[in-house]
Every structure is written in C-alpha cells, then in structure tokens.
C-alpha cells in the first residue's frame, strides 16, 4: 500500500461519521455514473457552525477517505471555511496522491459543498 499514506488507509479502513441525518439542514450529492461513484453528505448547522456532518459513500478508496477526512475536519467549524476547500486540502491531509486518485476524491468535495449550498437555499434537497 505504498501509494496510500497511513492517514489515508486509516480513514479508508475506519471511516468516521458514516450515516444519515434525519431532518438535515442540507443534503448534497456528488455523482460519477460512469465510474459508479456516489456520495451523499448530510449537514446540521447552528450559529453558522457545522454541528453535525454525516455521509454515505459508494466509490473508490479515495472517495471514502476524503469523505471521512472532510466530515472529521469540518465538524464544529464555520460553514464559510468549508466552501473554500479544493483538492489541495485533500493532498495536504491525506498525503500526496496520484492525479487519478485525486479525481475520484474530488467527488466528496462536490457532495459536501452541495450540501452547504443546499442549506443556504433553505435545505430543500431533503424533501
């Protein structure tokens, strides 16, 4: 497993915060039908902080690791910071990954940021 860092493998084998949130404040989807990847993020927001983050993921190892990382990192953080992240955030925290692995991982950022955008629009994705 030389291509994956210890942190990556840890998040992959022991993903944090997997699940759904009933009555979520925002729900976001990231999908790549050609590769069969799908990630759904659920968030609960209070006082502009992400007080709960959960997700469901079907996809390659980097989709799982990056989702787990995001859910752990942004718990109780300000929502505005979450919209600023890109793949560099993943590289910094999961170790230097090959380009194709980064492509898969991007899906988690898409899903997460969609959940935030959904919240901002009034959280209708849940309905």
């Amino acid at each position, binding site marked *: *497993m030389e291509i994956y860092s210890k942190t990556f493998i840890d998040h992959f084998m022991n993903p944090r915060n997997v699940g759904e949130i009933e009555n979520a404040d925002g729900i976001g989807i990231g999908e790549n*039908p050609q*590769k*069969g*990847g799908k990630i759904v993020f659920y968030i609960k927001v209070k006082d502009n902080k992400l007080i709960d983050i959960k997700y469901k993921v079907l996809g390659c*190892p980097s989709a*799982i690791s990056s989702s787990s990382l995001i859910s752990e990192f942004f718990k109780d953080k300000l929502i505005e910071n979450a919209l600023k992240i890109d793949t560099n955030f993943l590289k910094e925290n999961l170790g230097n990954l090959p380009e194709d692995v980064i492509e898969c991982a991007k899906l988690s950022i898409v899903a997460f940021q969609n959940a935030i955008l959904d919240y901002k629009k009034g959280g209708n994705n849940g309905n």
Partner: protein
Amino acid sequence: MYVYLNNAATTKTDGRVLFKMSKYYSELFENPMTSNYSPLAKNVEEEMENSRENVAKLLNAKRDEIYFTSGGTESDNWAIKGIALSNWDKKGEIISTPIEHMAVLKTLETVKKWGFDIKFLPVDKYGMVDPDDLKKLITKKTLLISVMHANNEIGTIEPIEEIGKIAKENGVIFHTDSVQSFCHIDIDVNKMNIDLLSISAHKFYGPKGVGSLYIRKGIDISPFMDGGHQENELRSGTHNSPGIIGLGEAVKIATDEMEEEKKSVLFMKKMIEDRVKNIEGININGHPEKRLPNNLSLTIDRVNAETMLTYLAVNGIIVSAGSACSAKEKSASHVLKTIGLTDELAHNTIRISLGKFNLVKEIEYFNEVFEYGVKKFREMAPK
C-alpha cells in the same frame, strides 16, 4: 497471512523450476549456438531440446514445431504478423473476437494499418463464440482465425475444437492464444486442428520473460524477430536458455501434476462459490460450466472493485479488478463491456484466480474477510 489469488496475472515460480534453472546462469551459462565446439554449450542445447520435447508432448505436437519466444505477447504478435507478412502481396482477412487479450487486439490494429481486413465474431453474454457464426463469416479471402482458448478475465473456454474443424474445412489457418489454458486444461493440437498456439511460462509456475509459439509443420510464417539464425532461422535472438529450460521443467511438472491442480483449485473455488451463493447481489461472469477451473469473476452490487481490492490487500489478500482506475486506463475492461456490463458494473467487478499453491485455510480466511467487506461497504453506500 498473505493470500495470493491473482494467478491469472502471474504465478510464483515453482521451487523445482528455480533449482533447475540456476546452474544455467552460473556454470552452464554458455550460448547454446556454440554447441559445435563447446561441450558446456552442448549441454545447454540438449537441455533446451528437452524443454522443446516437453512442450510438444503436452500439446501432442512434434518437437520441431515448438519455437521459443519472450512470452505470450511476442507469440501472439508473431503468429498474426508472421502470417500477414507471408501474405503481404495478396493481403486478405483475419477473423478474431472482441474479447481477445490486448496483445492480440493491438496486433490486429497494426495489421489492419498494413492493409488487412479484420472481422470480429460476436460473443454471447458468457463471452462464448458460436461456431455457426464463424461459418457465416468465413470467405475466400480469410487467411487466419485467431480465437483464444480461454479468457483471462471471465474464464470462459471457447469451442476451439469446432472452430479448428471449420478452419480446416475452409483451408484457413487457426491460431489460438492458450496463455491461460496451457498446463491447466488439456490441449491436443491435432484433435483440435490448431495451426498456431501461444503460451507463456509465467502463467504455469515457470519463469517470466519466456514463452512459446507452436507452428504446425507446413504453415508458411514469416519471422517476427530478425537477426540471427536461432530457432531454425525463424526467431532470432540469443536463447534465454535458463528461461527456456525453466519453461520446460514447468511443463514437465504440469504434465505430472495438472490433474491434481485442477482438483484442488476446483475444490477451493467451490468453497468461494458456496459462500458467494448466500450473499445477495453477486453475479458470476463467464460461462457457468465451460470455464477455467481456477477463475472466478464476480460483479458485486453496491461495492466498488477498487475499494474491495484495497480492503482485501490491507488484509493480506491479493485479487484483481475487472477494470483499471488509473489515469492510464480510465475505461472499463473491454471484455466486461463486450459481454454487456455497464461501466458502473464493470467498476464493481473483481477477479479471483486460484493456483496450486493456495491452501484451504487461505480460502476460509478469504471467505470471512470478503463477506465482511461486502457487508461493510454496502452499509456505507447511499440508497
């Protein structure tokens, strides 16, 4: 535990083969082409000829119909390009299948650029060719038919005896890529009317970098490797004598032990099949009966292949995936696509290929880890 279940990709070299080869790197290192004046080289030459005999015996061919190459890829290249080169002026047609190994498909692409027509036989959902389709496709212009004996991804064994019969009736040369089948299931080049046949040592517990092309006497084939006088002026290049001798030893071992291996891998494969039967949403690809004894291609609903592979690997188990997810090969496997799997399902497909070194306790371990993994990753999936 380290459990290696990727024998279709390559196999561990049998210790007896390694032992036999080693002195051909050290004391008996001389070039066999100098055998007319070096007694040590003569020893090498004789041992190489024994290898040739071993291969011929297992194919029911003649010793001088066996040529040594650098492996399956070269043998496939030579078979097709060699026939094309021998028919350069009149050109003509070559018939093959869409599920061949890339070594055949890429070679056909090149030969098409040379001006030859390439036609593909359809295959059914099991990847099986219907010999009647071949009868319909053959014309007076058909020079060569190339159909693999058994498919490396899904394990389906093609009806090559019928194909050989049709080829012979129509005066068409028949090549079969037997890289996955030789030394694992029976092959008789006479009974099956095979004219050209490719094999690769590292698929049957021999060394890497060496293989063979069987060429029926009387077939007019041009050399692929130009240069020296080796292999009856047909395949130049200093002999990889340790490799060739290793290949011969591996064939000799397989001649004695193939039946035992078949029984063993079938038993272990059944252990996996029985476990898989009780898990919903898992489909076995390829023909249910006419398949390689060691091959199991599984499409797993709601579980990504790369994820399952990584999870198994972290637990010390090595299998392979039905499609590559690297930047170099972003598309799904051509074989899985041909038999009708969507890109999505192809990305959920893993391949397990057993070998003679696997043990029952390894399979018991695999079953536990695999079943747990399927459950774990399905629980994580969105609805």
